[in-house]
Structures are given as structure tokens and as C-alpha cells.
């Protein structure tokens, strides 16, 4: 069944139609890639899913619950996490603190007045965060400041933050953008090795990444879904070629 159901979503900025009647169903447990030329509306769509933008029209349902007019943090609490194009971490905090935050968020919800909670009570949660960090291979940076990590490690850390509160849907906005070859490979490996059951929506330019990760691909162009299918189906799709070539000519 579809965990995410985007229905007839439209959004325009002034005169520019960024999204036009977008319909998209993401199946539970799959890795679904969103591709398309620049300005096709991929990031806009992700922003709609995370509550950053409000569409003019249409509906988005996540696991049977509406996502529109819901705050970003509530969306996250529902089980949707987002990996940003530039790794978004808490640079002046230690790696452990970075990961502790989502662990608290999972336990306490979006706001909790536990102002005086001592370390003793926090210990199991901190231990869980440490475990997460180890799982992503960042244990030797446990007490380093996140801002001092390499880009690849920051990406890993961001992933750890996203996974720590056990999301059901992970949105990835060009997770390998600006990465060196070996870092990209590591990231693919990381994504592939992730625990089963997490649905992933990935926006990506790098076709190697897309084809090595995605089970299903949707193609966006000029705010519309122009094609959808398995990687093999998309590879030779005439509309897709047209859309990309069209861009190249501009």
C-alpha cells in the first residue's frame, strides 16, 4: 500500500507554476527516486512534504494522515525525516549531542518541560544515541564538534540524526551533491545498508546513484510528473529524454 499519497498538488510562485496537479504514490518500504531537470519542481515538492511550503491546491496524506498545514516538527514526529542537500547538523555541538536531540524528540515529542531532568534519567537515551553513532561508524568522533567533521562524515552524522528517531519515511535531497567519488559510493552503501522498512524518497541528479538505489523513479518536468516506472522503464522513456535534452538546449 502507499505510505505517501500526493494528490493533485499545485503550487505557484507569482506567475510561475512550480507544481501542477502532481499525483504521486510512494509504496511502503520502497526507494523512490524523483528526477528531472533543474527547476522541474523536485525541491519544491520535498518542501511541500516537510511543511516548508503550502500548496495552493491538492492534498498530501501520510499513512492516512493529512500533511498539509502541519508544522515541520509535527511532520517529523509523524515519522518523516529529511536529509538536506548540504548536510544540516548542529555544528557547535558534539556528535553525541547531535544524535541525542532526535532521541529526546522521539521520547518527549516536539516539546516537553523536563527542565530539570538529570543525567541519570537521560542515560539510557544517551546510550542509545551512542549506539546509533557506532552503527554509522562515527564512534571515533563521538565527542568532536560536528562542525569539524569532513563533509562525508557530516552526511553520515545527518543520517544518524534522521534515523535516530526511527522515521518511516526518509526524504533525501541530493544526498551526494558535491561529494567526491569515494564519498558518494560510501553514501550509496550506507543507504543500501539501512534497516529495512524505511521508505525512501530521493531527489538526485547523479544517475548512477539513482540507478543503484531506486526501485521506482518518477520524472518531474515543469512542475508535472511526466513519467513513472522502474529504472529500466525510465531509461529509454522518450519523454524523459526530451525533457533532459530540452534543458540541455537552453
Amino acid at each position, binding site marked *: 500500500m502507499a505510505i505517501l499519497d500526493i494528490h493533485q498538488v499545485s503550487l505557484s510562485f507569482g506567475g510561475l507554476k512550480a507544481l501542477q496537479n502532481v499525483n504521486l504514490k510512494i509504496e511502503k518500504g520502497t526507494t523512490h527516486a524523483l528526477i528531472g531537470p533543474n527547476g522541474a519542481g523536485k525541491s519544491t515538492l520535498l518542501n511541500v512534504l*516537510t511543511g516548508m511550503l503550502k500548496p495552493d491546491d491538492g492534498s498530501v496524506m501520510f499513512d492516512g494522515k493529512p500533511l498539509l498545514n502541519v*508544522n*515541520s*516538527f*509535527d511532520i*517529523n*514526529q509523524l515519522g518523516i*525525516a*529529511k536529509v*538536506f542537500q548540504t548536510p*544540516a*547538523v*548542529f*555544528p*557547535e*555541538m558534539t556528535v*553525541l*549531542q547531535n544524535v*541525542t*536531540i*532526535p532521541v*529526546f*524528540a*522521539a521520547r*518527549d*515529542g*516536539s*516539546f*516537553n*518541560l*523536563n*527542565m*530539570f*531532568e*538529570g*543525567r*541519570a534519567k*537521560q*542515560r539510557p537515551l*544517551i*546510550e542509545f544515541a551512542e549506539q546509533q553513532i557506532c552503527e554509522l561508524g562515527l564512534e571515533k568522533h563521538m*565527542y568532536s564538534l560536528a562542525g569539524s567533521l569532513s563533509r562525508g562524515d557530516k552526511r553520515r552524522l545527518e543520517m544518524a*540524526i*534522521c534515523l535516530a*528517531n526511527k522515521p518511516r519515511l526518509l526524504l533525501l535531497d541530493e544526498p551526494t551533491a558535491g561529494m567526491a567519488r569515494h564519498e558518494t559510493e560510501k553514501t550509496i552503501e550506507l543507504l543500501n545498508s539501512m534497516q529495512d522498512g524505511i521508505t525512501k524518497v530521493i531527489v538526485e541528479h547523479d544517475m548512477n546513484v539513482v540507478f543503484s538505489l531506486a526501485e521506482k523513479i518518477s520524472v518531474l518536468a515543469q512542475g508535472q510528473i511526466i513519467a513513472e516506472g522502474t529504472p529500466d522503464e525510465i531509461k529509454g522513456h522518450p519523454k524523459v529524454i526530451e525533457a533532459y535534452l530540452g534543458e540541455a538546449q537552453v
Partner: protein
Amino acid sequence: MLNQDNFWQHNKAVLLFALVALTMPLWFPIMGGYSGLDTKIMIFCIFVVGFDILLGFTGYLSFGHAAFFGISAYVTGIMLKSFSDNIIPAILVAVLAATVVAVIIGLLTLKRTGIYFSILTLAFAEMFDSMAMSMLQKWTGGENGLTGMPTPMLFNLKMQGDTVFYFVTFMAIFLFYMAKRIERSPVGLMMKAIKCNQTRLEFTGINARKYKLLAFVISAVYAAIAGALMVVYEPFVGHEFLGWHQSGEVVIMSVIGGVGTLVGPMLGAGFMLYFENVLSVDLGEQWLLVLGAIFMAVVVFMPGGFMEGIARLKKRYFTTVDGE
């Protein structure tokens, strides 16, 4: 790291502060201080520790915290004058009043960030100052200040001299301890995360706005307690309590001491008040010029304030011991 969960480690700073503060009447006079100034320093320690919860943790620079300090002081004064000379109801009502104002101002101003937030808080505080000076003169005494309160009483205890010093100092120690508790609680972590990356925090399922408001209100409560204690210490309220110079002074105390360290701003408060009231006398008419130059020197040479200076000294004298 987790083995640090023992009492001593956690409360080292608090215990040290308690020791320094409680013995102040013994050592402060040696360096030219006097009773009265020590009380005032303790009151401002409360103010700046609270302020650091906002500025140091969340990174929001308020230029209007004098509003909460001043409103609370006025309410305390009016309560002492017209209700009862017992300080307990006066402080409670004053802090409550300031808290209500803080919630309203916080809700309005925290929608803005950066300099816009600072200027909004400044505008609110200046508005209160102007109102106290003009519209509300009948109640605030305007330029002359609010005077004519009875000697504040803690039930049967006269709040004068050493009594008021120890009362204020115990409050300061308690409130510093509370601030430390907040710092290592999940709430403290969230507040610090706001300063680092608010967007990431929101996408990690945290309602940043509520935590910001919480930080704002907590810092306002600290400011309000300090304001109320000012009146307990000296039954007088000057309109200066509300002015931007007062807000600015707290910002300077924090920065000069070291933002975000809780202890640093207290050092800053102690230094500023000591300089202004003791060293200034020896420097004569040009004391303010020297103070201005010190501000500049500290920011230029010690970007993290006194706390960085201390850290550097520690590094120089202690790393050789356990280094390598």
C-alpha cells in the same frame, strides 16, 4: 564520559560559586569593596545568568531585558508601599507580572530573528521606559524614581545590611544551580540547538518556537527576580532600571565575561560593578574612558571574554602537566 554523573562533578561550579559568594563579606572589603556593592553584584549575577539562558543558549540577543527587571522592580515597590512591607507577596506578584509581560512580548518578538528581534525587544523596553517616565509618573515617580517604601521585611526579619546580602546570595546560588540543571537537561540541549541550527532542529521533530519562548520567559523570570531583589536591597526604583542602558549593561556583562558559559557573565557582572563603583573612584573623571577602552581590549584580544582568558591561562599552566 558517563561516569561523570556524580554530585561533585556536576555541581562543581555551583559549589565554587557558593563558596566565593558566601565568603564575600570577608574578602571583598580587602579589595576595596563594601557591603551593599556585594549585594548588588549578587543581584546582577542572577540577572546575567538568566540572560545567558537566552543569549548564550539560544543565541537570541535581547536588548530589552531591562523591561522585565524594571517592571518587576516597580511592582515590588508599589506592593511594598501599598500592600504590605512583607517581601514575599511583593516578589511573587512582581515576578508574575513580569512573566505575563514576557510571555506576550516573547510571543510577538520571537517571530523575528537576528537584529530584527533585538530591535523589537529594544523598542518594547524603551516604550515601557517612556511610559514610566511620562504617562505613569503618578505611580512610578517619573524621573524622581519610586520612593517612600517602608523597610522591606521578610516576615519579622528586616531586610537590611547582612540579612539582605545573605538572602540575595542564597537566591543567586539557588538560581545558578537551577540554570545549571536546565543546561544539562534535555531542554537545555534543545535551546543550545536553536543557536546551532534551527531548521535542522525543526526537522528533527522539535518545536523550536516553544523552546525559544521558554528560554525567553525563563530569562525574563530571572531578570524579574533580580529586579524585585533590587528593591528589597534598596527600597528605591529609578526609571533607569527600564532604560536601554540597563539592557546594554547586561549585554556587556555577558559578552565581557563569556557568552554561553553561565559563569562568565557573572564574572562580567562582578567586574563591571566593581569597576564602576570602586576602581572608578581612583581613576577619577576619566574612568568611563578607561572602561570603554577595556571593553575594546577584551573583545579584540579575548574573543571569548574572561572565560576564554581563564581557559588560556589553564592551558598554559596545566597542559604541560598532563599533556604528552
